[in-house]
């Protein structure tokens, strides 16, 4: 079964143009990604849902090609929809009834028989830690429970690709983290994930690759590591004796110094070895440190920096 393109890329888009109501919403989208989890990030109205609609064949592009799991869209969109589960932001828990009814219905919608759907509905709800609440009417569900139920609906037919459109929207921080961890478990279990979100921390938490979309234009598509280097961090030391000579000693020892004054020095640490070296040199030179802090560059910082750079 062909699931990826020539370079291991399972998501390939080439020159995609799409209009909505006469307005150009996607303009020349080009990307090829292979990460287990791909984040589609952008502000509200950037074109994320439109891009997902085009990927699923619900929206038709004027120009360009899309290939997902090696399937050309929209020609083989039906096959893709069989092999993927979609948690759509716009869709509610449908058609009502209890949680298990809704998940069972989703199973039947994906082509499973009634009994098999019911069996798998319980399995999916078990996997998402939904207990006795599954028998309660979905109308009374909290936002977190509703999102879990929607996730179970997208999972019930055991898809190899999960397309999640704003899964954490409306959740409180603990609920958000809980749901993200559930999705992470699904990713670690071997499923490919396409996560559309406007919350950068969600993408950072889950994704290997990132698509950044701004006003219908892809401004970045590639590994998250190209934006955020998780293997290093910027450290800031404050105290006395942090002079130019101290900085030169650090540089000579192989530590990258970013800038320094008499009282303050900023350097890059690639782990405990660099930190141990820093402490040794500080001790040898008699530097007195009052504070040593770590300035972590988050994905959000990197994306904001990039957006600002793009806008001049």
């Amino acid at each position, binding site marked *: 079964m062909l699931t990826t393109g020539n370079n291991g890329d399972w998501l390939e888009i080439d020159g995609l143009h799409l209009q909505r109501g006469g307005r150009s919403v996607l303009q020349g989208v080009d990307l090829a990604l292979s990460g287990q989890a791909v984040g589609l990030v952008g502000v509200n109205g950037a074109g994320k849902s439109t891009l997902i609609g085009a990927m699923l064949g619900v929206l038709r592009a004027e120009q360009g090609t899309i290939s997902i799991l090696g399937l050309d869209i929209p020609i083989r969109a039906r096959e893709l929809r069989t092999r993927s589960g979609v948690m759509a932001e716009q869709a*509610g828990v449908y058609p009502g009834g209890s949680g298990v009814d809704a998940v069972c219905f989703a199973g039947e919608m994906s082509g499973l028989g009634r009994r098999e759907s019911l069996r798998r509905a319980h399995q999916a709800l078990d996997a998402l830690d939904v207990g006795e609440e599954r028998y309660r009417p979905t109308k009374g569900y909290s936002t977190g429970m509703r999102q879990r139920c929607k996730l179970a609906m997208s999972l019930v037919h055991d898809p190899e690709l999960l397309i999640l459109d704003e899964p954490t929207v409306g959740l409180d921080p603990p609920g958000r983290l809980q749901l993200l961890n559930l999705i992470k478990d699904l990713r670690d279990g071997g499923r490919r994930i396409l996560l559309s979100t406007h919350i950068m921390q969600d993408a950072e938490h889950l994704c290997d690759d990132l698509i950044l979309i701004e006003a219908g234009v892809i401004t970045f598509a590639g590994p998250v590591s190209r934006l955020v280097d998780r293997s290093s961090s910027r450290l800031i030391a404050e105290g006395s004796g942090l002079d130019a000579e101290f900085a030169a000693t650090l540089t000579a020892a192989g530590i990258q110094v970013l800038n320094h004054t008499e009282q303050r020095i900023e350097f890059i640490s690639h782990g405990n070895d660099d930190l141990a070296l820093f402490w040794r040199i500080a001790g040898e030179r008699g530097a007195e440190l009052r504070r040593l802090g770590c300035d972590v560059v988050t994905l959000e910082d990197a994306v904001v920096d990039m957006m600002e750079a793009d806008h001049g």
Partner: protein
Amino acid sequence: MMRSIRIALLSYLAPLASARATRMTCVLMALLLMLVVTGRLTGFLPPTAFINIADSLILYGIPLFAVLLSEMSLRDGITHRTLLYPLLGPVSRTTIAVTRTLATGLLLFVSATLTLICVKVLGELSWSIFPQELAALFFGSIAYVAFFGLIHAVNSKALIISLCVFTLFDLPVGRLPFTMRNLAPSFHLRVLSDKIDSISIPVMMDVSDPSLFFSAMVMVLVTIVATTLTALLFSRRNLVNLC
């Protein structure tokens, strides 16, 4: 194929009870039945009134209920986003459009048949032409739902347009005493239910005798053409409201 039809049908039936059109149809049919029951029990309706009610149900009820119910084929699913589920499933848009249109037609046929049976029982009406009336209800239901469904597929103000088409074109043309009446589905509904009634005009024109077979074929043709066009339009449409 059967699996696709089952999925499309399930997604159609699931929100049926909550659809506005279903509620309105149920209320109107219930009012009609209440009128018949009250008339029967109190005796304020003369025996001929029951005949008129039965005739009106076929000749006017079917098109008017079709105007209401045809909204449920596709428009209602787009408005309330319930169509998103079958669209995200392994079903083609053509299957969705055809299945939902025909299911709506059958729904109208079943509910109208039940109402007609109640009227006939309560009014103690003759059952001699019931098979013909049943054929009129069947062909009329699917043809009108398909026809008005097509209007819903091309225009968002389909309710008003459908009513205008029925009252300003279909009804008057269907009662003309010359061949042009063949263009109106209402004429064929009259032929099928054996209730032909033409307006009197001072000009005499040659007109061929109506045929049950011909009228049934016209209604089938209307159903096929309208359903095909609806499916074609739906397949090519960018469903922006759903994304």
